[in-house]
């Protein structure tokens, strides 16, 4: 099962480190990363595989949201299905 992690906020050091640390700790594999920085505004989208995830989805979600608050970024994780449903025919 795959999910999309979206990280949005003001650019700073250590964003990818902080997010990927949580993912690695919970056995979530990163399959793809895209990111841009425009006018100091950082946007990153990660496609992650949760097949071997060691915790419940909600635990991971809370951990990501907490780290998001710590580093002042908005971090969301959503099942990939929603995006595929809305944007493919």
């Amino acid at each position, binding site marked *: 099962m795959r999910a*999309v992690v979206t990280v949005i906020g003001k650019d700073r050091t250590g964003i990818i480190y902080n997010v990927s640390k949580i993912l690695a700790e919970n056995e979530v594999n990163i399959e793809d990363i895209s990111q841009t920085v425009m006018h100091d505004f950082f946007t990153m989208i990660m*496609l992650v595989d949760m097949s071997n995830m060691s915790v419940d989805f909600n635990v991971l*979600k809370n951990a990501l949201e907490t780290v998001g608050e710590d580093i002042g970024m908005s971090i969301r994780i*959503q*099942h990939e*299905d*929603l*995006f595929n449903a809305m*944007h493919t025919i």
Partner: protein
Amino acid sequence: MAMFKDVLETVRMIEKERLDIRTITMGISLLDCIDSSGAKSRQKIYDKITRLAENLVKEGERIENELGIPIVNKRISVTPISLIAGSSDDLNYVEYAKILDAAAATVGINFIGGFSALVPKGFTKGDRILIDSIPEALATTNCVCSSVNLGSSKAGINMDAVKRLGEVIKETAYLTRNADSIGCAKFVAFANAVEDNPFMAGAFHGVGEAESVLNVGVSGPGVVKRALEKAQDASFGEMAEIIKKTAFKITRAGHLVGTTVAERLNVPFGILDLSLAPTPEIGDSVARILEEMGLEHCGTHGTTAALAMLNDAVKKGGIMASTSVGGFSGAFIPVSEDEGMIEAVECGALTFDKLEAMTSVCSVGIDMVAIPGDTPASTISGILADEAAIGVINNKTTGVRVIPVYGKDVGDTAEFGGLLGRAPIMPINKNDCSVFVNRGGQIPAPIHSFKN
């Protein structure tokens, strides 16, 4: 994986434009709860609802979390209670409403619909008792919603029901006078009622439906408005295209949520209702979409055409996105639940008569309109008859949810709170229609040829 910009678009729709799933509504048949003993029947009803819907809220919240899209309401619709209670000896069905309320509280939902009767062509004993029980039922319960289907394109309009329901609405307003007559906000009188509608107050589980199904109502006026904002110089054809594409995406999200919840609850997925449903929140208004098309205020000349175009384009986009479209599937224009409508009424741009005209091109009728508390029952019946006529003649669903707010008059505002919002009291025509309403009988079914 969806493209970068697609992901961001979805996130923006949810975070900034209030994209949400308005409701997941579980339809439950109560036909096997019929019993000659009212008490036994009610016990069966309670047991069945609490058994089948035990995990509705839990699974709804789980999917909300996983997909990251809010599901605002979790609700239940049941078989019209007049059909269930009719075989008992009870002379009052308020206890049935109370057991529905208790079941709703147990499973943690906010509304349960189906305290209903279907009388387009006449009353059964159960229908009469149910209709007489509506005011007390709505005054003594929190979550129960009631509806009556009083006309259809096949049968015409039951004018005896029209007359009686005018009185019922007045009685309900009086019994809930301490809360701005809020009981009336939980009652709809329909013509051509649909059997699979997930939206309240008019949801019920029709007799042609399966044992239990999961229906979904989507939302998204804010998303449509934002899409149109980006196309200021668009022609009508271009606007229609933008609305269609947006409706497609909204519908896909709804379809995914509906099918996933249904699968996890192990019930069949029923229908997806495409209606654009507003809320009183800023940025979630159907009126503002119409204004975005170039109207100074909703209600001015051009409003009916704008609404017709919007409604049609939403359907076209939605139909492509899901094969299970049903319910009303049209834009809703409730006054109290739409911040733009409220403002349009307050500034005098939107009148009762214009609202009536607008209902001829969209669902679902005169909805959440507060009128003076001293409005005679016969005038309310006249309003019901007019709306029913629009529905019956045009082969569409129409409904009336008016609130004659006890003790209030034009210039006052009724406060319902939450999703029901607030409503400025609207002036209505003061001329008498009681002789017309009191005639009784049936307006015959209309001819379905020579359409003009």
